[in-house]
């Protein structure tokens, strides 16, 4: 595998412009949306179509080796791409395929699996859902109980997964299942076709306006090749996909755009900026965005250079989780009482979007809670006892 060429600042800014030009041409402003929440059928169809356009440009799997359908580009370019997509609230779907599944395949998939499954993700041919969490295994993922038992040429999987996002719209489920006792060594990863007999989804609505499902796996039979990588290596794959990818989900890019809208609004209302506390709050929001942007640059840079991060477990991840709801709360404070008006209300500000952002900000637990991120930082990063 050849190392990607490291881009200089000029190349990165030309690349940023290329992505921006594409988004400007392809993404009507009213189509921008947060795929995690607004997943009605029409929006979803549009998002898939839009994501396929990005796929056709080779943007999904930008950093993967070319032999697996990737672009062989640097992590820095990938971060720039993601920043621009987030800044535009671009309706990109299949993030589970793009990050968790691909990360796992790259970390441990067989050569055949990499050649078969990764290009399908890159071309947006297979949409993945994530089957990690269970009713009794949230933060303590290692205690999961879904079982996979080998029977001849097949695996038989039984268990229940919780909070599956995009389940009904996905083709396959990334399933972490127990193949032996214990965390390390006891968990294996499977790809399960969601149309298999024995799979049932029970959707439930969330506060953000979207849906998660309870996913029941009742003696679901999958072929031997559905095991990704090796038996019992699942925990390592998940951790590598989550913690060591050299990529940062740039929520800060979307926050930066919202902050710009907020400052413009404040400037448009005489006396607003001078009202008590407003500048202090705006500065706080700006600092949140700025800190995350700097730490993202650090994480990506460390990843590219193969440097060990200052703290394992990542201060960046802690801040991202903690800032998400706080950002929305301070934002509303600046906007004032009209921030509670919903889209379509006559006096709603900024199209009523802040009301939705506020609700959605309480989804900060997806992918791990702030408290657990701190616990990981304390134990892995600072070496405190568990």
């Amino acid at each position, binding site marked *: 595998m050849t190392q990607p060429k490291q881009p200089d600042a000029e190349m990165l800014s030309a690349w940023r412009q290329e992505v921006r030009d594409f988004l400007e041409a392809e993404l009507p402003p009213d189509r921008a949306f947060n795929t995690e929440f607004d997943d009605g059928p029409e929006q979803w169809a549009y998002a898939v179509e839009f994501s396929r356009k990005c796929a056709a440009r080779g943007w999904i799997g930008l950093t993967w080796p070319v032999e697996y359908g990737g672009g062989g580009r640097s992590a820095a370019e990938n971060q720039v791409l993601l920043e621009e997509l987030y800044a535009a609230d671009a309706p990109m779907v299949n993030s589970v395929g793009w990050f968790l599944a691909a990360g796992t395949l790259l970390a441990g998939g067989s050569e055949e699996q990499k050649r078969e499954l990764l290009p399908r993700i890159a071309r947006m041919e297979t949409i993945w859902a994530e089957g990690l969490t269970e009713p009794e295994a949230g933060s303590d993922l290692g205690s999961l109980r879904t079982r996979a038992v080998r029977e001849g040429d097949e695996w038989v999987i039984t268990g229940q997964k919780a909070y599956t996002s995009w389940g009904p719209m996905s083709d396959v489920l990334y399933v972490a299942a127990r193949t032996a006792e214990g965390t390390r060594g006891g968990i294996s990863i499977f790809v399960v076709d969601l149309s298999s007999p024995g799979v049932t989804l029970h959707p439930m609505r969330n506060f953000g306006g979207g849906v998660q499902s309870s996913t029941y796996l009742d003696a679901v039979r999958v072929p031997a090749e559905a095991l990704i990588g090796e038996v019992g290596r699942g925990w390592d794959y998940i951790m590598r996909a989550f913690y060591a990818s050299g990529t940062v989900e740039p929520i800060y890019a979307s926050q930066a755009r919202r902050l710009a809208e907020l400052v413009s609004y404040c400037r448009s209302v005489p006396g607003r900026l001078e009202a008590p506390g407003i500048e202090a709050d705006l500065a706080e929001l700006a600092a949140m965005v700025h800190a995350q942007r700097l730490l993202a640059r650090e994480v990506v840079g460390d990843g590219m250079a193969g440097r060990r991060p200052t703290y394992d477990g990542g201060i960046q991840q802690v801040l991202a989780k903690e800032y998400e*709801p706080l950002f929305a709360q301070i934002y509303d404070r600046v906007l004032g009482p009209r921030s509670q008006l919903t889209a379509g209300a006559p006096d709603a500000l900024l199209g009523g979007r802040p009301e939705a952002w506020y609700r959605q900000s309480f989804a900060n637990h997806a992918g791990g809670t702030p408290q657990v991120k701190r616990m990981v930082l304390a134990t892995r990063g600072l070496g405190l006892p568990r």
Partner: protein
Amino acid sequence: MELTWGEDFEALAQVARSVFAKDSPLVDREGAVDERDRHRQLVELGWLQLHGAPGSSDGAGLASAAGVFVEMGRALAPSPLPALARARDLALRIDSPAAADLAERIGDGEEWIVAVPLDERWGEAPMRLESGRLEGRAMAVPHAARADVLLVGALEGDRPVVVRVDAGDVEVELMPNLGERPLFAIRCDRVEVRPEDVLARGEAAARAWAVSGRRADVMLAAQVYGAGLRLLDATVTFAGQRHQFGGPIGRFQAVQYLCTDIAIDVHLTSAYAREAARVLDAGGDAELEVALLRRQASRTAQSMVHAAHEVHAGLGFMLESDVHLFTKAAKYWQFELHHPTDEHTIVTCLGAETGVEVPRESEVAL
């Protein structure tokens, strides 16, 4: 030396608990109870006359009436009581037979009357009364679509007034909001005002608005307190029952801090509310006490739902959990209780009686 609720607080709270138990989104998400039935019930219970003017025989006093409002908050009950009580309180504070008559009609349930205070926090300029015509717009008026009469705050020149307006003369527009509250924008398009409908002017009007507003805010804070108690209970229960890593999550200090954050903020809200109610019941103007209370209650409304979401994690984000119902209700409280000038008031009012004795400039060694 005591800081307690009023004498009848418990008795009223007990009745209120059973009344609101059935009319709560925590029990019935669809909210099948009709607003008119709610009104009828309030009349039957005599709660529209719950807290009256200081020195008057009617009413239980704020420190006792709070029992009803605490329970209303605990149930997140969508009762029109606060809006109607606010209007009656305003009318009671105006020294005129016409105002007394309006207060009586609200109390008897004959008319549905709501107040439209002079309030620029929603971004509208104050309404104006000029040459017998009322002009302008006001936002977030609760229950305005049901009202027969509005008591409107406006400026006549630079003097505040209280004007009686027939609801039929104004345009009413729903303001859909996170908490799904019946909030309305009203517009007066050169509405004709008869001289006798200007109920108060100048200093008298300003005082009636200020005092009735402060009293209403104490009752609003009491609702935050009630809701907070329920949310605290739900969160502590969850922390005891939800197991991760081989035991209840409540044994993690990270979770304990979140639960105690709720307890501290909710309790402080109650402490400030009891003090403000005491001072108002004694006929004081409670400017400082109410400013301190509003600042705390507004913060509590935000902080308690934040902490509850943190503890409930994924489950709290699902509509099947009740947490979001508190989040929706609290948003309105947070803003309704937030007055940007309160911090200034607090600093200005510091003095011996607040326990913060500020030396005169000449005595300070800088």
